[in-house]
Each structure stands twice: as C-alpha cells, then as structure tokens.
C-alpha cells in the first residue's frame, strides 16, 4: 500500500518527530514501500525523491534556497534533487519562527546533523548489504559507493534498509574544507514561480466558496466599538455579513472590493480614546527631557560617567530617530476555515506556532485539530511576528463557521495599525584627556520598549538586565574607551511598538556611529583611523576580545572589515569633486561584523535631495552559505536604511497620520545607489550568521556622516532634511 501525500503528512504529524521514526517504521512493518525519515526535517521517498521541510518562513531572505544547500552538503546530494515542503506547526515542529536574522544559524545547527545522520544510516545500510565496513564506503551525489569494487547503490535503493539502522546520536559532520555546496552562489529556487505569477503569498490563497473580509478598526488606540449601524453597509452589493469582533467591526463579502465598499458605508461610534491627545511631537520632547539626566545604567566600565569630572574637554551631541512603519508590500492578511471540530489557517506568518496557539485560544480547539499553512510572505521585516491579524481572521471565521474567509488589511490599515519602530532620543558625550585621547564615553537612550505583543511590567522597566535587552547598539558599543556608562530611560507611549528589521539597533547605531564621526572631525582625526585606534589597532594592551553581558565581540574582526572596506572603496584616495565619503560599522549581536563606505553628492535622486553614488560594504558573517544571497541582503539593507532617511511615522490626536506610500514614501528605483559592492571577508568563524538585519544598521550613519561633511552641517535626526 502506498500512502498518498496528504495521508502521509498527517501520519508524520501524528508522530513525535526527530530520531524516533526508525522505531515507528519498524512497527509499521506491513508497509513495503515507505519513506526513509530519520528525523523531522527530511525523508527519502521510495521513488528516491528527497523531501526537506523548510522550517523558516520565506519572506525574500532566501531561506528556501540557502537551507536546502545546508542539507544537501551533509547528505551529499545535488541541491537540485531536494524537494521542499514548508513545515507546519505541530508535534514535530514546536518552535517555528523567523526573526532576529537567525534563520541560517538556527537551521545550520539542525540541518547539518539531520543530513549527516541520514547519510550515515544510508552508508550503514550499504555496508550491511555488501558485508563491508562502513568506514570503507563513500558517498557521492545521492549514492553510496564502494571504491575498491566500484559497487554503487543509490539512496533510493537503500532508503528502506536505512530506515532500520539506528539513528546516530552524534553524526560526523563534514569538515569545512570539503564543502562543495555551502559557499557557492545559488539563485533563488522560487525565482521561476515569482516571474510567472505562480508564487502564492498569503493574500493569494483561494479556497472554493470563500468570502473576503475587512475590519473597521478604532481610529485611535484604546477606543472600543460603542455602537454601529450596518444598514448602509449591508445594502452594498456583495456584502454578506457585518460582524462585531473584539478589534472592531468586520464586513464580510463576496469579494475584497465589496468588503471595502461595505466598510466605507459602515457607521461606527467609538468610545473616547484614553490616548486621544497623544502627539508624536510632544512625545519627542518627552524623550528629550528624559535624557537630560541619566536613567537606568545598563553598562558601566571603570569609573563610568564620573570620569567626565576629570577630563580636559567634553563634547556632546543629541540624536533623534522617528517612529517608522514596516510598510511591506503585501498587506497583512490571513485566511481561515473553521469546520466542525477542526480548522485550517493559511497565514503569511513569521510565527507559525504563535498562530497555532492563537487559533486554539480563539476557536477553543486543540492544536491537533488545527492546521496552519505557512504561506510565502510579501515582505515581513518583523511585522508578521505579530498575530493580531491572524486573531482577527480567526474571530471572523468563528462567526461564519463552515465558510472559509480571507481577512485583508488595506494599505491604510497596514500603515496605521502597525507595530512600529520606536522613536528614540540619544545623548552622547565624549571626554578627552590632555592629549585629546577619548577616555570617557556616555550614551543615554530614551525610548519605548516593545509593548505590542506583550506589555513590559513595572519590574521589567527597572531591571537593568531586561532593559539592556532593549538597548542593542548602546550597551554593546565595541570600542575601547577607558571609562564608559550607558543608560536607558523608559518613556511609555500608546503607540504599538514591535520588532522592526534590526529591532533596537538602527537608532542606537545611527547615534553612536554619527557621534564617532563628529568626534573624529572635532579632534581632526580620520574617522577610519579613529575607529581602528579605538579597536586596539595601535595598542596591544587593548583586549581583542570584549565580552559584555552575553555578547562576545572580537575587535580584530571589526578592524578587518573596516580595513577591507577602506581598501575596496579607496578611502585613502581623494574623492571626486562634489562628493564626500562616509564610513560606519557595527557588530550585530556579536555575530555579523559589517562596515560601509559610501560616496554621496548633492545631486537630486528622485524625490531625495541627495544621491548615494556608491556603496561599498565589507562583512564577516562567518560561513557565507550562499554568497549571492548575502549580497542581496546587503542591497536590501541599504535600500531599507535609505528609506529611513526619507520617511517617518507621526502621530496626532492619538492617530497615525500616514496611510500610503505617498505620505510614508519608501525609496524608489530612481533613488537607488548606482553601485552597491559587497565584499565578504574570509573568516575563521565556522558558523554562518545572518544578514537581513545586520546590513541595515551602519548604512544610515555612513550616509549621514558623508552628508554632514559635504554640507558642513551636522545631521542629527532622521528623516534627513537638508
């Protein structure tokens, strides 16, 4: 009996996952042709097809390309021979989630042993069949080969025997020197589907008989539905239902457009918002007041701020960073079908298990009765780590049980009801000794912690370890300065704050790296040379390794990327007339080391008053699994960061003022730098680290540093106003 695919997937979901399937299949002995499935990540079908589960959501970062490369390397098969299936949350997959630039590293830890274990079992099966020692056998491109006899058996031929082999606990992993696939450039596996329109994102889910929904949400945070009049909405052709849900009023219709028109006709009275007077201009002033005095210390080196009492000269500057939206092109959406005692969800989610949990709560069904299909994501950037939109879809589907329904957020919904990057204000101070050496450092940050997915407690806000976790880019300042003190002032706001590409880092790194440039200018030093000096280039007594909290920074690696970017950009050579160069660097979570040199001019680029003429990036991410993917993430980070120099989210009377790409303009093609070069620095670090977020952080400061030099006027806030 040959199980069909659907049945088989359900069978898999019913088992407990990794490393026990050998037993399960032994028990199911009446099956003659069955897949070899040594763990949850991989199975080899009797027909030889190798099927891999992708445990990360594809949102453009290329996981459906890079992750199969890792498995193929250890399993010793061609990447092209791997079929991929998106993993769904369940007993085998309890921790699916895509964020923190952790996809490649997280899956590296899982897929290498998964591939190596399977390979070892296939080799063991061949050894048993041929009566030879496994150590005499090799694998090559999907087959086990016996060198001396030239015997050869494909993985397909060996699969059912391999399933009977014990799963090795610590399979031998390949040595880095013998990689054939990892480290080569591979094009996107999803490319052909994308260019033909076949790629299915969450919003493209089409189920027979489905309806479409939009939700009228409170125009101000904290308001609730007081009453609503659906008379006119129900008269709109195609509108089927008008339903109150916890988050507002849903209009359910035969098509998206009818639902949107129905919402326009809907009249809702909202309760008075407790935040009706919230204004982002006033909020920025509150942040400025909050850094007038030090708040909670999150790092103190040597004498801390007391060192400023002894310095010869102090230099200070204040930086600010606005609220910002994700503004992914695919608006938030989720499709749900609630049947009798079961449900199916299709979500473009970064947190499949979060959706699973939300579904159990909203529907009152056990997880085993709910299937969550993880769809392609038309831009994630952290926003889809929230399940607010999934919850809305679940609430609506519960009310129209028996009918599948797709919730779509309009562009304005997506922009106005975001989980935003928090606005922040930074005060930095540098103290110099008699010889103008930088000997004291202070960085105070005032901002709002994440509050959208869970609200920090009073205790959280005074716990230095918790607060430090909100201050990436502040406490992990990599330079050696004898005395330093960093502090964080929590300023609450009703604005929903959540993870946004690179999370807490972009504002902090912007402030820190611009301030370093100011110090260099103030003390007439070259900003590259100053950074290298502060990283111990001239002083062997400066420790090359720097540990702070759980971060482990190797200053030599940061120096190396700075030296590389300087060399590749011609930092030491004169820049063309009308241009200036800027430089900045960062270590993202002690993992990816990255530096940019940019050249800017004051020629217009699209709607921008300046143009980034050239971008040179050098980075050390350990193992670059797919160098082409690395370059793409750098390009993406550059454009993302450049958009932050152009747009901001502002709030008035408790409402976000922007709603479209016209008032929250992102970078367009005519504003894009003409040249972006990525140089991957060879690294001793034998693990691969992420790029999606690291590539964002030091770009804006590099550009601002160049612009400040070019215009002679220091820019200390974003968006850039020349």
């Amino acid at each position, binding site marked *: 009996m040959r199980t069909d695919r659907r049945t088989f997937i359900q069978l898999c979901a019913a088992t407990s996952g990794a490393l026990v399937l050998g037993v399960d299949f032994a028990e199911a002995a009446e099956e003659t042709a069955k897949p070899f499935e040594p763990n949850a990540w991989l199975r080899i079908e009797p027909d030889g097809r190798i099927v891999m589960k992708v445990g990360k959501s594809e949102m*453009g970062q290329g996981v459906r390309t890079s992750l199969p490369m890792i498995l193929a390397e250890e399993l010793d098969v061609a990447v092209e021979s791997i079929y991929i299936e998106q993993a769904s949350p369940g007993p085998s997959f309890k921790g699916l989630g895509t964020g923190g630039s952790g996809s490649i590293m997280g899956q590296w830890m899982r897929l290498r042993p998964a591939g190596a274990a399977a390979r070892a079992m296939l080799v063991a099966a061949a050894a048993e069949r041929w009566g030879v020692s496994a150590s005499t056998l090799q694998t090559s491109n999907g087959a086990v080969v016996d060198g001396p006899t030239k015997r050869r058996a494909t993985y397909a031929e060996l699969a059912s025997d391999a399933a009977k082999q014990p799963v090795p606990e610590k399979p031998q992993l390949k040595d880095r020197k013998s990689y054939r696939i990892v480290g080569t450039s591979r094009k996107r596996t999803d490319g052909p589907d994308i260019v033909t329109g076949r790629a299915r994102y969450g919003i493209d889910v089409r189920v027979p008989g489905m309806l479409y929904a939009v939700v009228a949400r409170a125009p101000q945070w904290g308001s609730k539905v007081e009453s609503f009049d659906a008379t006119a909405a129900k008269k709109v052709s195609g509108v089927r239902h008008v339903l109150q849900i916890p988050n507002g009023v849903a209009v359910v219709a035969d098509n998206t457009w009818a639902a949107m028109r129905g919402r326009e006709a809907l009249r809702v009275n909202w309760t008075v918002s407790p935040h009706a007077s919230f204004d982002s201009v006033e909020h920025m002033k509150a942040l400025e007041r909050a850094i007038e005095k030090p708040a909670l210390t999150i790092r103190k080196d040597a004498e801390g701020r007391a060192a400023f009492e002894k310095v010869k000269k102090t230099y200070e500057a204040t930086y600010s960073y606005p609220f910002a939206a994700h503004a*992914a092109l695919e608006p938030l959406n989720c499709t749900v079908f609630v049947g009798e005692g079961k449900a199916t969800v299709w979500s473009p989610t970064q947190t499949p298990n979060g959706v699973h949990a939300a579904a159990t709560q909203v529907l009152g069904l056990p997880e085993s009765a709910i299937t969550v299909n993880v769809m392609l994501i038309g*831009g994630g950037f952290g926003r889809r780590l929230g399940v607010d939109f999934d919850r809305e879809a679940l609430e609506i589907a519960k009310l129209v049980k028996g009918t599948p329904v797709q919730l779509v957020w309009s562009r304005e919904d997506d922009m106005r009801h975001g989980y935003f990057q928090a606005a922040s204000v930074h005060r930095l101070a540098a103290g110099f000794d008699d010889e103008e050496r930088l000997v004291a450092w202070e960085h105070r940050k005032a901002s709002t912690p994440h509050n959208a997915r869970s609200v920090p407690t009073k205790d959280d806000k005074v716990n230095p370890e918790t607060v430090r976790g909100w201050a990436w880019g502040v406490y992990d300042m990599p330079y050696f300065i004898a005395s330093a003190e960093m502090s964080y002032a929590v300023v609450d706001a009703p604005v929903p704050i959540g993870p946004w590409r690179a999370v807490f880092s972009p504002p902090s790194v912007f402030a820190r790296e611009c301030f370093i440039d100011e110090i260099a200018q103030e003390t007439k030093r070259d900003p590259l040379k100053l950074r290298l000096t502060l990283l111990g280039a001239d002083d062997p007594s400066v420790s090359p390794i720097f540990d702070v909290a759980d971060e482990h920074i190797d200053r030599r690696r940061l120096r190396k990327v700075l030296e590389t970017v300087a060399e590749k950009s011609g930092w030491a050579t004169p820049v063309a007339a009308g241009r200036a160069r800027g430089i900045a660097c960062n270590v993202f979570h002690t993992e990816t080391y990255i530096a940019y040199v940019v050249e800017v001019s004051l020629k217009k680029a699209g709607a921008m008053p300046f143009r980034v003429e050239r971008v040179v990036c050098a980075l050390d991410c350990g193992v670059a699994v797919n160098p082409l993917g690395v370059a793409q993430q750098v390009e993406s*980070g550059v*454009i993302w960061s450049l958009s932050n120099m152009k747009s901001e989210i502002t709030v008035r009377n408790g409402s976000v003022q922007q709603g479209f790409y016209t008032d929250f303009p992102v970078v367009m093609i005519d504003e894009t730098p003409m040249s972006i070069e990525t140089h991957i620095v060879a690294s001793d670090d034998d693990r691969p680290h992420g790029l999606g977020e690291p590539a964002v952080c030091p770009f804006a400061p590099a550009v601002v540093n160049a612009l400040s030099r070019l215009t002679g006027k220091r820019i200390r806030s974003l968006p850039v106003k020349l």
Partner: protein
Amino acid sequence: MPQRPVTINGKRHVIEADDAMPLLWVLRDLLGMTGTKYGCGAGVCGSCTVLENGRAIRSCQTNFSDTGDKSYTTIEGLSAAGDHPIQKAWLAEDVAQCGYCQPGMILELRSLLRSKASPSSAEIDAALSDHVCRCGSYPRIRKAALLAAKSGGGR
C-alpha cells in the same frame, strides 16, 4: 449586475460584476488570477500593473466598465512557458527577494520595451520610478532590465 466580456491573456471571459469594480479585483477575486497583486489600491505602488492593449496600466484604477473592447495581459499570460526574455533576464540576474512587486515591475518593463527597445538606465529608472519594492531589489531590476532589452524583451 451587468455581464461583460473581457479578454485576458488571449482568452475571452464573460464576467458579471459591478461597473465600478476595479479590474484588480475582477482578476484576483472573480477569476482567481492572483499573479496581479494588491499593494495599495490607490495607483501608487504599481504592484497591480497589467498590460492593456500592450500598455502598462494600474488595474486598481481601471473600472470593470472601462475594460470593454480591450485586451489585457497579466503576468500569467506574459509567456506560455515562463520564458519571455524579461522573465529570463530576471532569473539570470536573480532579481527577486520576496517577489511580491515583481509581476508589476516585469509588465511595466514590457510596456517600456515595446515603445523603446533599447532604453538607457535613466529611462528604465524613470519608467519604473513609481513601483515600490520594499525589499530593495532595484539594483538587480536595473541590471535585468538592460539585459532584457539586449535579449529582445521588446519584441
């Protein structure tokens, strides 16, 4: 509700829809052709771009009642086998990241190359300058566009 014939990718469909319904939703929700994307509904982002008699238009700004005697091409119909020179150039330069904006970008370029077979990089920028790509695939779009022009994307 009125029934109207509309020709999409060479095939004539008779569709019943409200006159004011944008072509975008006719395609996506009534015909299930989801290659044409919803991004803003305001004609700003370009992700809903389709070809109308060969010229790029925003399907979110085109009422169903105005589609009458015209012929439309969506991304699904650009080529039967997915091997139009623009699609091939896109794959050669590995343009896409999330890919959501790419159907609109590709069809806008198709429209440009039809009227101008060998555009300059600046002309490509100008033609695509009202298409949003939030991932930032623009540098590769430029390269692919030049490659597509060279390889007969305007034919």
